[in-house]
């Protein structure tokens, strides 16, 4: 792995800690799901952490982040409090949406985290609108919009790419190509095959493919994209190649892919890969890594405790916020 020259120790520690937090948070979520404490659909991001962390870390506060239902990683990378996320997963009153949203619908207005969207492709038009608002008000804001390889086949994706390009809007389209939409292998569903970024050509949107298991590669690609987008010359498309190590959701027995494929991809584990680099480049010591691990564990445990101890939403909040 090539190391970007300007990586600093604090950044290295930061990226590693964030990826580890996502990993441990989700491992815990999976356990809690099996215990029946978290219900509904739970989509894990395990294996894909480098994309959220590498890209979101390049943003400034006023930029917008918007994503799909596989959203814990993006929410955590954007700095959302693990406690309120876990409480939301538990359906508790202290959750980010007071228990009304659930795992797939995390929001944090204070961080311009504009939400997780559970209708495939549904967030893309909204991303365009956020960018439109930024341009309309002459604000220097970029929208970072995440979506999957499955979403690319939705009309909303194409409508959004087209309009963002026609109106030259500040959007980074961040495709997380994990090769599957539920059980459907990308080459069975996308006419262009597994290298999806070529679709951007049709809309005259500059596009790049990047190793989504390499946090620094993702960071670099996003920085490049940001530079371009901030000049006002319209959107950029990034395809991050990745793999989810778990099923589509907790309900998925993963019968559609060979375990050998997973074994191959596990060798690319973004956290392990980055750990090797960080140690080699002496950004961290073994002791520090252990300290990070302990800190992350404590954070996750505190989040769980907070969620466990929080009250259920009051029934009289049921009708709140249907209307302004």
């Amino acid at each position, binding site marked *: 792995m090539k190391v970007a020259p300007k990586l600093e120790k604090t950044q290295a520690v930061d990226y590693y800690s964030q990826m580890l937090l996502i990993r441990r948070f989700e491992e815990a979520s999976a356990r809690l799901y099996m215990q029946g404490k978290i219900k509904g659909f739970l989509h894990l991001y395990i294996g894909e952490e480098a994309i959220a962390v590498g890209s979101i870390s390049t943003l400034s506060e006023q930029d917008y982040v918007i994503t799909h239902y596989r959203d814990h990683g993006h929410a955590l990378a954007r700095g959302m409090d693990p406690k309120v996320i876990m409480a939301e997963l538990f359906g508790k009153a202290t959750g980010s949406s007071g228990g009304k949203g659930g795992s797939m619908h995390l929001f944090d207005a204070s961080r311009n985290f504009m939400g997780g969207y559970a209708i495939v492709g549904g967030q893309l*038009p909204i991303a365009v*609108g956020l960018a439109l608002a930024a341009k309309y008000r002459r604000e220097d804001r970029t929208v970072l919009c995440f979506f999957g390889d499955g979403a690319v086949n939705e009309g909303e994706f194409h409508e959004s790419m087209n309009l963002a390009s026609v109106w030259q809007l500040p959007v980074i389209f961040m495709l997380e190509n994990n090769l599957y939409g539920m059980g459907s292998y990308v080459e069975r569903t996308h006419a262009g095959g597994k290298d999806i970024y070529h679709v951007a050509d049709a809309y005259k949107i500059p596009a790049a493919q990047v190793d989504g298991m390499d946090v620094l590669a993702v960071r670099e690609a996003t920085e490049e994209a940001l530079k371009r987008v901030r000049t006002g010359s319209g959107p950029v498309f990034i395809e991050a190649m990745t793999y989810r190590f778990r099923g589509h959701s907790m309900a998925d027995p993963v019968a559609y892919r060979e375990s050998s494929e997973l074994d191959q991809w596990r060798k690319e584990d973004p956290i392990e890969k980055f750990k090797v680099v960080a140690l080699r480049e002496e950004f961290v010591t073994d002791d520090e890594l252990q300290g990070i691990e302990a800190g992350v564990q404590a954070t996750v445990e505190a989040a769980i405790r907070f969620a466990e101890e929080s009250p259920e939403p009051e029934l009289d909040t049921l009708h709140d*916020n249907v209307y302004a």
Partner: protein
Amino acid sequence: MPEMTMREAIARSLREGLDGDSRVFLMGEDVGAYDGAYAVTRGFLADYGPERIRDTPIAESVLVGSAVGAAMAGLKPIVEIMTINFSLLAMDQIVNNAAKLRYMSNGQFSVPIVIRTVTGGGGQLGATHSQSFEGWFASVPGLKVAVPSTPYDALGLLRSALKDDNPIIYAEHAMLYGMRGEVPDEWYEVPFGQAAIRRPGSDVTIVAYSGTVRIALEAAETMASSKGREAEVIDMRTLRPLDLDTVIESVKKTNRAVVVEEAWSVGGFGAEIASAIQAQAFDHLDGPVARVGSLDVPVPYAQNLEAAVLPSSQRVVQAIEDTFGL
């Protein structure tokens, strides 16, 4: 009092919105250079420029969805969906996003957009271009639905809509654009959730909205002139919120009700009103609540066939006779 057409009343309100608030902008297919498919926004592009009068590609989903995003970011978009038939292509953004974002975020975001669209048949445009879906939207919590039937209401309801922080479906009936009516120069608003009694009467209550108000009034005239019966005509004005109080009060007086809508009767919004009348005024009713809507077929092209399918004053009078013997 000065008179103007429905089209002029809507345009006036849109201009007020644009003039009064820089967060307001219009977008839609052919709202600019073409002047709007129904000429509502004639001259707007020249007056406000392409940043605020935005022609979009023919892409209903992103056109509504991007308005939702812009609204979440603090703007106040007014979107035109050329006709309600095309709203089907934006259903995801309207129903899954606009109507839900405030609730799912527990109030962190709101979606102050006005979606103007054109509803109804009567222009011989055939099955795909003559439908009335406003009732579908009215069944979705999180949306508000306005169905004006006069220039006065068109202006007054749109003024209220522009002050509202919720997503609003504002359905303009295609056959009413040229309708003239009195509109005062002085400022007024028509609040959502307040039905209007268009004609007082004591023998039967006719509940209508949008294009069927005219039909209801015609039917009431016929009832009066040929049968000596006085029908009370109620114009709902908005379907969500729904002013049932005015309807129930009227039915308690007339003891008879007929609900007239242009949507198909099967699963139509009129069933909701009929059900409410039966639940809240059962002991006051002299018979079942009658309903008149479009016949249970796609709307055909030929003039005589289309006229047979859409509700008419004759069918309203007939329903009153069949149900109540009046």
